């Protein structure tokens, strides 16, 4: 179509003007409506994205049975089980430092306090809403229980309490146990007529467990002393 077809009286500049107008309109229409999304939704798996290939639609695959993922060969069995020859161990697999204790306190307040309460008295808010009440940490049986027992409870659950193995990494579980020990000591040592809040708001006592020298601290705050669980096997 040329200018002359439209109207003999329309000049070249007017035709240009109209053509430019049409171009703007077309760009608007393309940009505004006919959007292509190839780059927005790329054919790749992002976390939890659905897969059409597997029958359960999960793109994140569970481990094939009988295999071990790289870096997850749990050679340090005490660190990972808390058991020695099938019996709960009594020592920590790494030194308990100030940082470990601080980390344990934070993780305890996130994962355990909802039921066990911040002081470990077993009267957390979820219990007040109807969950079975756990025993207080300050009964003799639990005060004397070996740390390996606590590790077992966190990792495998206990009665009505579910396990926390998928929510809490291994080293954090030990840090939590260190903090529970501190709670038990502090409740034991201090006069019981203090209001509960004041007992834990101050820094917990630094429990000096066997083998706790000053130590390099990795960013997550915890360094296992040795891969074979040495200070346990003594």
């Amino acid at each position, binding site marked *: 179509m040329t200018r002359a077809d439209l109207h003999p009286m329309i000049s070249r500049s007017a035709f240009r003007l109209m053509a430019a107008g049409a171009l703007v309109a077309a760009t608007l229409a393309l940009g505004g409506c006919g959007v292509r999304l190839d780059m927005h939704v790329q054919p790749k798996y992002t976390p939890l994205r659905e897969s059409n290939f597997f029958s359960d639609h999960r793109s994140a695959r569970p481990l094939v049975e009988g295999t071990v993922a790289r870096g997850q060969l749990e050679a340090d069995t005490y660190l990972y089980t808390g058991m020695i020859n099938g019996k709960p161990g009594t020592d920590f697999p790494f030194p308990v430092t100030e940082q470990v204790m601080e980390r344990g306190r934070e993780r305890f307040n996130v994962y355990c306090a*909802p039921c066990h309460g911040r002081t470990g008295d077993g009267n957390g808010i979820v219990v007040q809403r109807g969950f079975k009440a756990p025993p207080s940490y300050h009964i003799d049986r639990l005060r004397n229980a070996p740390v390996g027992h606590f590790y077992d409870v966190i990792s495998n659950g206990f009665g009505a309490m579910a396990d926390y193995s998928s929510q809490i990494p291994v080293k954090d579980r030990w840090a939590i146990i260190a903090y529970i020990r501190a709670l038990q000591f502090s409740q034991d040592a201090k006069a019981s007529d203090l209001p509960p809040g004041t007992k834990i708001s101050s820094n917990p006592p630094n429990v000096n467990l066997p083998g706790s020298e000053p130590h390099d601290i990795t960013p997550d705050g915890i360094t296992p002393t040795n891969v074979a669980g040495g200070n346990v096997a003594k």
Partner: protein
Amino acid sequence: MWGCMRAVGQWMASYMAQIFHRSANTIAKASIIAAILLIGGLLWAGLELQRSPYYTYAGVARSQPVPFSHLHHVSGVGLDCRYCHTSVETSGFAGIPPTKTCMNCHSQIWTNAPMLAPVRESYRTGKSLIWTRVDNLPDFVYFDHSIHINKGIGCNTCHGPVDKMPLTYAYASMQMEWCLNCHRDPGKYLRPHRVKEDPKDPHTMDDQVFNMTYQQPTAEHPVVLPDGQSFTSQDALGAYLVKVKHVRSVRDITSCSTCHR
């Protein structure tokens, strides 16, 4: 611009003076202005529309297979975000809790509620609950939670008052201009992880990034760090945190390849 219009007018006049009345000149000029305004208006409306909730879903509560309420679980039960979003500190992806996490409590609480039937069904059959995404960046954008959390950006800076949401909605548009607004001056939003503990306020015992009631320092409410340093303005606190947290330069974090890699 005006020169161009005068030229068009003169051109029209030279051809059509005999056919059209004089006022046609004015009408012609007016209609050109109107056309320009219309195009401009359309462009503006388009830009506003793609910023609006209609397009970004900001502020729009999404329907979910189970009416999960952050209001009840966070403000009511007092759960920390990390109880459910376990990987938010260590990975790019915050993590959506698996059904088992719900069953930690709902094995005993509200066990017969019809509302929770899909959760029990999912637990029994092992089939995942499919939650509707609330915040979703296009795949060509790289985002990572862990660095934002570790440098001290609070959850509610980006996600808004999640603890007050009966159904989750996106708080911000999560568009590029929104990300850049902070990357150009992150000091405006940084928080310390730890503050000096105050037995009267239990929130001071926790990590402030997860504290949904955190307030930026003012003269009346200074923010006091564990070592006793006290800040009365966000400017001072932000500048201090940028330094001790080694926040990278604005030039680094506004470069295109930070988010498009």
